């Protein structure tokens, strides 16, 4: 009997061990990971919904966070700074876990963002930052970007390289971070290049019609204008239209989130060059940042992280089929 019993016990052990291996072993961090996101809320206050940047960020955040059980809420102030401030104020009392804010200018939301952090809400700022730094900023390094753009302009327009040395700048809203910081970057570089003359520096309020009229007048007044730097591709369809209409060879360098419309614009010659901060990439950065915050559970406002987005300088020559991204509605 004894040998049979031993054999049976041995067989049982062997079987159960084999069974464990066949079923796999559990990842010890998994439960904790998913637990960290259960019942959490992320609120998103863009400048407005309805254009490529804000729609792209929303889609990316939704895609990354909702499968984890995070509730994702959008408050759309539709270009009204007042409505945005109200949305943030009411969110402070509703206490979501994370607040994602896209600032219309550097001042308006500064105190509210501080209050939100004090109320225990993590605050993530995207692309246009406020003068108050919060837990995280994800977006383009506008000062550096302005510098790089100015250097491209110097390269293209310097009389040493056969250009006329005359350039123009079309800003967005003057007080927006994208305009104010970038202008500093541009002016710093131009200060070292007296051969480059900034003949026009105007604000078009992110509006294509205003951008068109400004460009038309500047080109008319300076027929030897070499290049225009515009601060947003959606606005610069107007600048591009004015250049086409004038029949002059003016280099248009613009910037944006790298939506398909930017590649279309390069393809049909509306833009000469587009500086791209990749929107899906920014959305992923934000989602990762939020995941980290919710797992680390640090005190809101105790850590300040800046993640500058890598820039890509797209032209018709280096552009590839996958260079730009599409929104669901464009597919």
């Amino acid at each position: 009997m004894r040998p049979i019993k031993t054999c049976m016990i041995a067989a049982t052990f062997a079987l159960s061990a084999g069974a464990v291996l066949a079923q796999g072993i559990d990842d010890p961090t998994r439960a904790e990971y998913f637990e960290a996101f259960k019942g959490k809320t992320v609120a998103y206050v863009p400048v407005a919904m309805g254009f490529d940047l804000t729609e792209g960020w929303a889609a990316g955040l939704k895609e990354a966070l909702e499968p984890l059980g995070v509730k994702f809420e959008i408050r759309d102030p539709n270009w009204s700074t007042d409505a945005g401030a109200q949305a943030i104020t009411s969110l402070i009392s509703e206490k979501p876990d994370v607040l994602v804010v896209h600032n219309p200018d550097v001042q308006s939301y500064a105190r509210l963002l501080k209050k939100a952090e004090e109320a225990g809400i993590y605050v993530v700022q995207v692309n246009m930052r406020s003068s108050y730094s919060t837990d995280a900023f994800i977006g383009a390094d506008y000062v550096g970007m302005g510098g790089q753009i100015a250097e491209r302009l110097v390269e293209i327009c310097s009389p040493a390289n056969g250009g006329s040395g005359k350039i123009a700048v079309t800003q967005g809203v003057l007080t927006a971070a994208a305009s104010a910081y970038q202008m500093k970057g541009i002016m710093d570089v131009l200060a070292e290049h007296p051969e480059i003359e900034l003949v026009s520096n105007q604000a078009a309020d992110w509006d294509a019609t205003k951008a068109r009229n400004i460009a038309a007048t500047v080109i008319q007044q300076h027929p030897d204008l070499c290049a225009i730097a515009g601060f947003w591709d959606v606005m610069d369809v107007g600048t591009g239209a004015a250049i086409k209409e004038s029949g002059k060879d003016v280099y248009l360098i613009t910037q944006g989130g790298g939506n398909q419309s930017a590649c279309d614009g390069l393809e049909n010659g509306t833009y000469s060059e587009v500086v791209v901060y990749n929107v899906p990439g920014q959305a992923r950065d934000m989602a990762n940042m939020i995941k980290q915050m919710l797992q680390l559970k640090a005190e809101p406002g105790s850590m300040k992280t800046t993640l500058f987005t890598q820039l890509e300088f797209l032209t018709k020559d280096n552009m590839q089929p996958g260079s730009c991204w599409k929104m669901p509605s464009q597919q």
Partner: protein
Amino acid sequence: MQGLGRLSQEQIVFGLALLLCAGFAVMLPGFLTTNNLLNLVRSVSILGILGVAMGLVVIGRGIDLSLVALMAISVAWTLQLVANGMSLPQAVALGLAFSLAVGMINGILIAYVEIPAIFATLAMGIAIYGFGRYFLFTLDVIYMPESAQALQWIGQGSLLGIPAPILAFIAVCAAATLFLRWTTYGRYLRAVGDNLPAARITGIPARPIIVLQYMISSLIGFAAGLVTAGSIASMNTRVANSTMVYDIILVVVLGGIGLSGGRGNVRNVVVGTLLIGVLLNGMTIMNIEYTLQNVIKGVILLTAIVIDTILNPRDEQTAQQGDI
């Protein structure tokens, strides 16, 4: 002052525009060239076209605050339809029909339901913008699709060296002048604007005329929208939230069309538009900072109104009820 006393506001504004022109011509090389002057008029021609639409409504003693929202939404919808694969003429027809239908609803609300024009059109503008953004398309800037390229001529083309938007402006002005001067309905419109009860007693179909006036305004608005879309290869529906509609009213009032109705002509709109055009063009050439531009614009407009008030003081006859 006695000699100046006979100058109308229109003449004062025209004089101011000429004065500015002369000043810029002396100070700014390149201002008084054919190209720049064409460019100047071209940049305000859309404002001018919308001014004519608003002017007609104001002459009929109304106001159309939904003008810009309706223009943006109906033309953006047209572009969206083309992008979705509809043929261009069909999409334009649908956009126009939508625009006219909304104009008619405006008119009915004002003429038959007797809601004051300022409230009816204010609410309609907000409703139309929301309706468009929610039901008709999701993005707030609609790009012109390849298949709608034919539309680009009206915004970017030119004939005999004159840019198409200027031609559109001239055409709209001419049509509106003919309408006001030579057609029965044009005269009815002015009569209704001047004195509604008297017009009704004499047998003029006052209510249908009011409906007509809002339909005309939405028709001209749609045309202005097509010119806008053509010239920047896209339609930005955000203009519905901008101060553009006030700029339009400003052009109308500045040119001398009284908000009390019955007075004024298309010529007034042209003069008001020119003053704004000269100002904007000169300041852009001088590369004046944006915020300072607003100050200068405001001061010059105030000056024009102050001069008018001094030369043409209000009395019981001119200060009609409804003059804002």
